[in-house]
């Protein structure tokens, strides 16, 4: 099973995402933003960073990168797609997920270990977690405040599409403490914190993030 990780100009976390996918037992394939095809991958990760320098709005220019046309079509067809941090911002800008990520409420760039609760373990990326499981993975962003209108928020909550929520104090002003959401089908997930930085205790605060990458292996084998 092959998982593609897209590198845009300005992407930072592609190496860790590739490493996490390999550690989970999938074969990680590096994809370039200017690629016209997906090299036969079965799932795609949009990693964190500052693609295109975050110019205009975070993710706004990446959304129109040549590779994204194929990614959007494949994801609409059911291919598992995970956007982490900047990748989540790209998914919102591409309208694959509702809402938007705006400047953190206190304007600070946050970089810390963050406790989350997994609210939905029925997505392609979270089936190896228990519902209600608490995990600790790094959070590092300047624009991570999830915003949407009341109707969208009610839909996300009503359909159980909040995938992960911050535990404790709201770090960035996100509505309903939302850290991650999914599309209706559950194959597309956007997450602000970084599971790829927490796949082993040697380099991360925990190994809690690994299950995102083992979950998708299970989803693809199914």
């Amino acid at each position: 099973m092959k998982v593609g990780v897209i590198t845009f100009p300005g992407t930072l976390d592609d190496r860790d995402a590739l490493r996490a996918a390999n550690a989970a037992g999938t074969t990680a394939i590096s994809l370039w933003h200017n690629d016209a095809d997906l090299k036969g991958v079965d799932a795609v990760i949009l990693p964190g960073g500052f693609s295109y320098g975050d110019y205009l709005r975070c993710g706004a220019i990446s959304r129109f990168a040549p590779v994204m046309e194929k990614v959007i079509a494949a994801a609409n067809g059911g291919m598992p797609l995970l956007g982490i941090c900047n990748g989540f911002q790209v998914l919102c800008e591409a309208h694959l997920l509702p809402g938007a990520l705006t400047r953190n409420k206190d304007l600070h760039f946050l970089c810390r270990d963050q406790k989350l609760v997994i609210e939905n373990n029925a997505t392609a990326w979270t089936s190896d977690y228990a519902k209600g499981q608490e995990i600790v993975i790094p959070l590092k962003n300047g624009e991570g405040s999830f915003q949407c209108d009341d109707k969208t928020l009610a839909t996300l909550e009503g359909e159980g599409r909040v995938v992960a929520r911050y535990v404790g104090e709201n770090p960035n002003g996100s509505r309903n403490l939302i850290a991650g959401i999914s599309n209706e089908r559950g194959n597309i997930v956007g997450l602000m914190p970084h599971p790829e930085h927490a796949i082993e205790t040697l380099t991360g605060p925990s190994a809690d993030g690994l299950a995102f990458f083992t979950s998708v292996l299970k989803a693809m084998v199914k």
Partner: protein
Amino acid sequence: MAIIVVEVMLKPEILDPQGVAVGAALPRLGFTFAKSVRQGKRFEIEIDGQPTEQQMQEIEKAAATLLANPVIETYVVTVQA
């Protein structure tokens, strides 16, 4: 030559922490007039001649797809002679 101006603002219901920070800095400098501040973006797009109706439609489309994110922002298009 004309300049098409696209002004983009966060929707009123979206929190604007940058505007709040600027609003908090003003009275520290002795400027006490501001009730609130909101910060936006302004794009100036230069074109040859006066814009045609079709160009204005294209600019509207560009504003809605790229320059502004309609999920959180509003925009206004005007033409400067």
